[in-house]
Structures are given as C-alpha cells and as structure tokens.
C-alpha cells in the first residue's frame, strides 16, 4: 500500500516513514528492510519478533534516525524519537559494514567436516563428564564416537533453529566489526530489551 498522510508516507504494508524521513539514511533503512523482507522469508520471522526502539547515529554524515519496531511494523523517523532500547553510533563506513557481516548456522556448520568434528569435540566434553559420574572412565575418543552420530543426524534435520543464522566469527568483516567495537569505533548501548534486539536486527539489515 502506498499513500501519504500527515503522519508520514506509508511505504509497503508495515514499513512506514515519519515526516521528513522520505530521503537520506531514513529512507535507505526503510527501503533496505522492505527489500530484505521481500527477498528472504527468514528475515520476516526476525521482523515479527523485533519490538523496541533502535537509534542509529551516523557520526560523519551527522544523521540520526529512530527505528520503532513492534507487532510486525516498523516506523522510521529522523532524529531521536522516544527512549531507544538500543543505540548504535558509528561512521557511515562501519554502519555499512554491519550489513556486510558474514553469517553461519548450526546447519551450515554441520555441513563442513572439520567444523562438524569440532562440534563433536565440544558436545563430547559434557557427555564425558556425565559418563564419568555414571561408571567407567571413558576416553576422549569414546565420547567423540558417541556424539558423532548426533552431529551427523543434525545435518539432515530440517528445523528452523538449526537454520537460524548467527555471526560467523571466521568472517573477515565480522572480525573487523568486532575489532572496531573493541577500539571504540562502533558504539552500542542497550537495555535488556535492546540486548535481545541485536541479533535479529543485524540479521534483518544484513545484505549478505
């Protein structure tokens, strides 16, 4: 649906622009969300779950916008509107880089043999601990062999939790973003609700 009102311009169903937000960064973010929702069904889940206000400050461009999510709707306003649950502050370069972060999923990890072996080792440790409490002392190899079939089964299980994406810490951009955060080039402030928004928001805005 496209239409204009005093409250702003409605872009497409559930993404709405506040007054004066029809250009620049505000309009870019609205368009990015709209196109990502069209292109990728998994982003629709994240969009539905997001609830709260995100303030994005692009320091070098001297632009601030507020994204207000709730009930499968988004309103984008210029400036800070309301009390943000999550504030992201960085230069235009880092804000753009955030959309380029690499992602992976448990399913993807199990498709990769070395990573699957690593997962087996990871799951084997708690199993070994449990095993010790029950009787004979197992070897690492025994524990890994016991867990390996589970990891193999994960490869073939089609569950959305296994497909849910999380940052791939091996990715170059993801590492650069982590470095920028440590060096204070990318600031984020959040309350409890904002903390739960970080991952779904990053997935929603991702273009990779």
């Amino acid at each position, binding site marked *: 649906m496209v239409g204009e009102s005093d409250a702003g311009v409605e872009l497409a169903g559930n993404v709405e622009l506040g007054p004066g937000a029809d250009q*620049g960064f505000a309009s870019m973010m609205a368009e990015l969300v709209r196109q990502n929702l069209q292109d990728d069904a998994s982003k629709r889940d994240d969009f539905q779950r997001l609830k709260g206000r995100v303030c994005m400050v692009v320091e070098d461009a001297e632009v601030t916008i507020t994204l207000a999510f709730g009930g499968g709707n988004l309103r984008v306003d210029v400036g800070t509107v309301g009390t943000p649950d999550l504030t992201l502050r960085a230069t235009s370069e880092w804000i753009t880089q955030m959309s380029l972060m690499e992602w992976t999923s448990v399913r993807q990890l199990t498709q990769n043999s070395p990573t699957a072996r690593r997962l087996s080792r990871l799951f084997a440790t708690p199993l070994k601990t449990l095993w010790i409490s029950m009787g004979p002392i197992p070897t690492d190899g025994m524990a890994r062999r016991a867990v390996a079939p589970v990891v193999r089964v994960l490869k073939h299980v089609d569950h959305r939790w296994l497909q849910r994406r999380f940052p791939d810490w091996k990715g170059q951009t993801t590492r650069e973003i982590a470095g920028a955060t440590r060096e204070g080039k990318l600031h984020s402030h959040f309350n409890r609700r904002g903390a739960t928004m970080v991952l779904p928001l990053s997935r929603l805005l991702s273009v990779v």
Partner: protein
Amino acid sequence: MSGHPFPSEAWTGAYADAVNGNPKYREAGKAWTHGSVAMVIAADPDRGLNVEKGMILDVNEGQCRGTEYVTGREAASVADFVIVATYDDWRSVIGGEIDPIKGMMQGRLKLTKGHLPTMLRFVESSRQLVVSASLVPTDFSRMEP
C-alpha cells in the same frame, strides 16, 4: 585546466577507460553481474542544465563494456541502477570530498532505481567507481549542452 567537460560524451568515454584501468575496481566488481549503472545529474536551469543528463556505465564482472551519454531521466532509466544527484554533489563525489555511501545517507545522492541490498553488497565496487571518476581529467568550467 585541460580536461573533458563535465558532463559530456567525451567525459563518459574517458570514464570507461578509467574504470577499466583501475585494478581495484576489477577486483571489487568481479562478482557484479547485476546490470548497468546510471549517474544522473539533476536539471539545474541556473547552471544551464535544463534537462537531466545521464552517464550510463555498462559494468559487468569488473569491466566496463560500454557507456552511453543520455539526456532526460527516462533515457537514463533504462539502466538497472539509477543514482541521481545535483551537479555540485557529483562534483564533490568525483573530487573525493564525499564518500558515495555517506552521500546517500545524507540524501545528497539518491538511488531512484535498483536493488539497494545489492548496491550495499558492492559498496567497495561503488567506491572504486568513484575513485575511477576522480582519475578522469575533468574541466568543471564547461559542460556539453
């Protein structure tokens, strides 16, 4: 300063050479198969630009296969991606004074046609197109009517 008038057919042709001579663009744009890009200068009668002028780059896999200098938004809209800005803003972009993405965030450059997520995915490629533009000998005091 001697150079090609901006905008002009000659400048657009020289831009293609600059793009093809930029190894960083070749690398960054290697995966680009999403179509042509048009840089459109908004009409500005005070400057003698009564209609919009467009420079269309047929870019593919890190190469510029051809260019077209067109008049009017409609003619430029045959491109898959259309970016519109004023003469002064294009001048600032070409001069390296503003980064294209920062310019878009500030509303100085507008993507009026094209898939924004794709554009963002190739942000380095866009930067290298701008770097290539800065290498074209340009005479900003003249423009082709």
